[in-house]
């Protein structure tokens, strides 16, 4: 037997990674001892406990990113539905209402699915806590969901027989649907924007620091996505407001997104890495979608392209923001450095 490198058999999966890194470079270098070489590790400008995150990363799965998208889509669509209803665009109204229902159903499913104990979903209704955006959101969803449902179901009225009990329903449905549609639209902006608070009201550095802008990003993204669906599905003759809405949504999101990148160190995840790429992709798609919407006019193809881009933009933005939060929680840098800076600032401004 000589000093040949023995076989490595990782004891547990958790060792595999460092086995690769640990047993080779340092050991060999030290073993030879031929001097001069730096035994260094990447420098850091802050202290931590074994470089480990101070915070727990969100345990939310991508369900929640999906929820953010679906909820926003539902809210925007409900608004569009109501707008179409009030301005006499039945095709667009139908699309809006159906998308709202679809969105809220999906978001409810995703929300429940993400729970560790889905069977206990109803525990959300034990309390109503203004300190808990999720509680507030639950109650908003509890209000919005049925309303959106009624509004959407009302669209089925023409399928009902003319006579009998169902005939009565056929006659009552449209006005009930209209009331429900307007009521849903009234709660829709809250549904779209509370999610900004949902993320911001955490210790996750990149989310919390973004609290002034996240509701706007999400509001804009919701409008853009809903407009996108409308552009795809609604009769071309009724989509004019959607082009304006897409533009408005894009504007709101751009402004909000711009702020996201101006909040210091915790902006980094929005501009770098996978999360940064997602956010950037979202913005690029938003620009493309908006531009396409503006020039599409009568072109069905362009409208569809625009719609798809806008929806994709919203998805990318939500996933990007979601991922940025995870990244910022997992690196202690984003926790320690801003807090240190804040302490230094307080110290320098504190009276002696």
């Amino acid at each position, binding site marked *: *037997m000589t000093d040949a490198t023995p076989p490595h058999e990782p*004891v547990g999966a958790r060792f595999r990674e460092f*086995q690769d890194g*640990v*047993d080779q470079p*340092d*050991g060999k270098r*030290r*073993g*030879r001892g031929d001097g001069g070489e730096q035994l260094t590790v990447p420098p850091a400008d802050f202290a931590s406990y074994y470089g480990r995150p101070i915070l727990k990363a969100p345990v939310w799965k991508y369900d929640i990113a999906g929820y953010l998208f679906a909820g926003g889509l539902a809210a925007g669509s409900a608004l569009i539905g109501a707008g179409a209803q009030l301005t006499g665009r039945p095709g667009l109204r139908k699309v809006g209402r159906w998308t709202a229902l679809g969105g809220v159903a999906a978001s409810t499913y995703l929300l429940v699915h993400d729970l560790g104990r889905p069977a206990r979903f109803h525990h959300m209704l034990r309390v109503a806590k203004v300190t808990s955006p999720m509680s507030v959101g639950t109650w908003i969803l509890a209000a919005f969901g049925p309303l959106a449902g009624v509004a959407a179901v009302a669209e089925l009225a023409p399928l009902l027989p003319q006579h009998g009990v169902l005939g009565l329903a056929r006659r009552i449905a449209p006005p009930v649907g209209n009331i429900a549609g307007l009521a849903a639209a009234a709660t829709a902006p809250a549904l779209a924007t509370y999610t900004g608070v949902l993320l911001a009201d955490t210790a996750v550095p990149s989310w919390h620091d973004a609290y002034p802008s996240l509701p706007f990003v999400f509001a804009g993204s919701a409008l853009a996505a809903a407009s996108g669906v409308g552009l795809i599905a609604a009769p071309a003759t009724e989509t004019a407001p959607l082009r304006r809405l897409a533009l408005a949504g894009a504007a709101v999101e751009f402004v909000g997104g711009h702020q996201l990148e101006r909040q210091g160190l915790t902006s980094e995840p929005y501009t770098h890495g996978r999360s940064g790429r997602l956010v950037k992709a979202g913005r690029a798609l938003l620009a493309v979608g908006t531009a396409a919407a503006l020039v599409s006019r009568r072109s069905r193809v362009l409208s569809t392209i625009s719609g798809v881009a806008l929806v994709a933009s919203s998805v990318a933005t939500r996933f990007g923001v979601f991922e940025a939060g995870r990244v910022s929680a997992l690196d202690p840098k984003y926790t320690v450095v801003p807090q240190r800076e804040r302490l230094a600032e307080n110290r320098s401004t504190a009276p002696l």
Partner: protein
Amino acid sequence: MIVIQGSNMAEAHPVGFQWVMEAKRRGAKVFHVDPRFTRTSAVADAYLPIRAGTDIALLGGVIRYILDNELDFREYVVAYTNAATIVTGEYRDTEDLHGLFSGFTEENASYDQSSWQYEGAEQNIPPRDTETQRETAAGLEHESHGAPVGGDTQRDETLQHPRCVYQILKRHFSRYTPQMVERVCGIPQDKFLELAQAWTANSGRERTSMLVYSVGWTQHSVGVQYIRAGAIIQLLLGNMGRPGGGVMALRGHASIQGSTDVPTLFNLLPGYLPMPHHADHPTFDEWVDSIRHPGQKGFWGNARAYGVNLLKAYWGDAATADNDYCYGYMPRMTGDHGTYQQVLNMIDGKIKGYFLLGQNPAVGSAHGRAQRLGMANLDWLVVRDLFMIESATFWKRAPEIETGEIVPEECRTEVFFLPAASHVEKEGSFTQTQRLLQWREKAVEPPGDARSELWFFYHLGRIIRERLARSTRARDRALLDLAWNYPTHGPHAEPSAESVLYEINGYDVASGRPLSSYTEMKDDGTTAGGCWIYTGVYADGVNQAARRKPGSEQSLVALEWGWAWPSNRRILYNRASADPDGRPWSERKKYVWWDAEKAEWTGYDVPDFEKNKAPSYRPPPNSSGVAGIAGDDPFILQGDGKGWLYAPSGVLDGPLPTHYEPVESPVRNPLYRQQANPARKVYTHPVNTLNPSPPQEHSDVFPYVFTVSRLTEHHTAGAMSRNVSPLAELQPEMFVEVSPELAALRGLSHLGWAHLVTSRAAVQAKVLVTDRVTPLRVDGRIIHQVWLPYHFGYEGLVTGDSANDLFGITLDPNVLIQESKVGTCDVRPGRRPRGQDLLDLVVDYRRRSGDLVHRYPPMVTTDVADSSSDQEA
């Protein structure tokens, strides 16, 4: 001040350590001396890194510092120790003989102790044959009392006589200078002086210092002398028998103290009575006389009563004065029958059956491979444990299966695994580290087939006696006459533990009244008692060990919590807490004192002195027994009532501690030509190879020092922690701690693998590179030490190689405890080879270091030039 050395108290005894922290809070300074920086060092006021196995050199340095600067507590030393006693002119010191004392015989590597005696006492007692004493671990008999001294001694209380103990001590330790301490131990002189100054500054009338050790001291081939060295310091500084002083032996198991008091040891009977030796004790009278030494002073004068009571307790009505109380039934020792000798005999096929009772030698004993090979060569093995331990599954899971040394289909050992009851499933008493007996109540029934040892042995005895009921053979009389009638209760016929405690305590045979003190024991057969030092634990028919008056409702001494032997005393020799006139040395350190008005000793503790013996009492000439102890002789179980700085007999490897290198050491002894303990117990057996050490050649094949010990999170051989999930997860894998410097030298990386090789085995472990381990500069060389926990084995929730596999077997001569705190090894990166390759690796090391099987380290090396004139490469 508290000096912790040879102990990692915060890790191994965390709850006891609360008192150290309490003292620290009140201003005490804590010093920790240890080969590596531990959790104890982390909270200590000073940490001294030391080379494993050199503690006597450091302690000797402190002794020299005290004597040179006359910092001893002179009044205490003159009155209470044997400093003034004059030693015979025959005595020659290590100073004269290159590290040997006078009286050494090379043939049997042992000392004739006659030249160590006090002046005038040379012929008074024929010193027992030292070789026999070594074989029978006779040093253990002194756990409760000192060795005998004959007649009256001559004293020079000015301490000027060249042959008085004080002057002998001074000369003996003269070469233990700070420079020498640095050279031997690797402790910088400043650090040494910090310790020595603090120790001496915190001792005297107003202050006391405490010394704490554990198996870091005992598990050496010179282990007993480590403790002697500590005791000398504590005596010189007046720290014995006083509150906040003493030498604290922190023992490692719930009732390991009890296991020596009521021993399951081959050489002892309960109460430290010796097991009869075929040549020394053929008759009852010879046995008794060998204990009490007619004409001797002190409490051993009553040894006949203790012996008779034990035999009465064993054989009851059958034991009468006419048959010497059945002394003839007793088995006789002929030599060393200790656990390591047994294991070698097992390998040689001499032993048929083996009981393991809550013990796991496959992991917990030195030289694990020898242990497993021994077990694989038995007829039968009974394992009683809570868990399926390594010692029960060696026949299918031992490392030797992989190397082909044990083949299940060819291993004949029949194994019985019997599940044992846990500590909450049976009642009984534990004796903890301060001799305190505490009774445990039974909480629940044991599950399934699990039973207590009490049940097992009672019923095994019952069955065996039933089998032999019609026997007429003489050899079976001892079993048939045995007093074996214990009341039983419950569904499993569990014997009553209290009835056993009652027998241990002793009782009046006629009335059955429990004895309240060993002074009530009679030598005429009218009383019986199983362990004289425990008499009183059942005083007044009350289980005193079960007393649980809350500590908050008592003084700090807490005399009404449990029961301590002897006679519920909490600090031994506490007469020394008062000055010769019986007054406390100081108000701060008041503990036990003479109340002149009532003419009795009184205080916070039970006085360790005859209650009404005045300080002014002087024994009449030629008095013996208790009457021979003067009113100012606090050490009443010593033959002369004095604390022994110098031990004229009883310690087999010298009257004074001397630094010898561990048997396996990379260093030539810098102090003397004599390298290692010349009187150590050696086993020459093919399985027991030893790594070469200077002045032997090839010691550089094993250049590094390794030491092993406990982690807080695990318990000894691991059965009680590696099978318990909340503990297993806290230290989940075998590891080795190495210094950054050794890691660089040997190409080890943090969390990578390394293996350690000795001439016995190779053991692999994950590497923890840490600043807590430092290289040392020893005698001009850099010495690297590594540390391993010894808890791991191949069974349980977490497993790993066993550190004890690395050790060979060499024992301390006094008590036959193995040197398992220090050895030499090589350290290599990566995992160890497996199967035949593993054997080849070890064989290769043996080859490179000489033909070790036939070449043991020489016992005497005084003919080889010492290191100063023979600088090693």
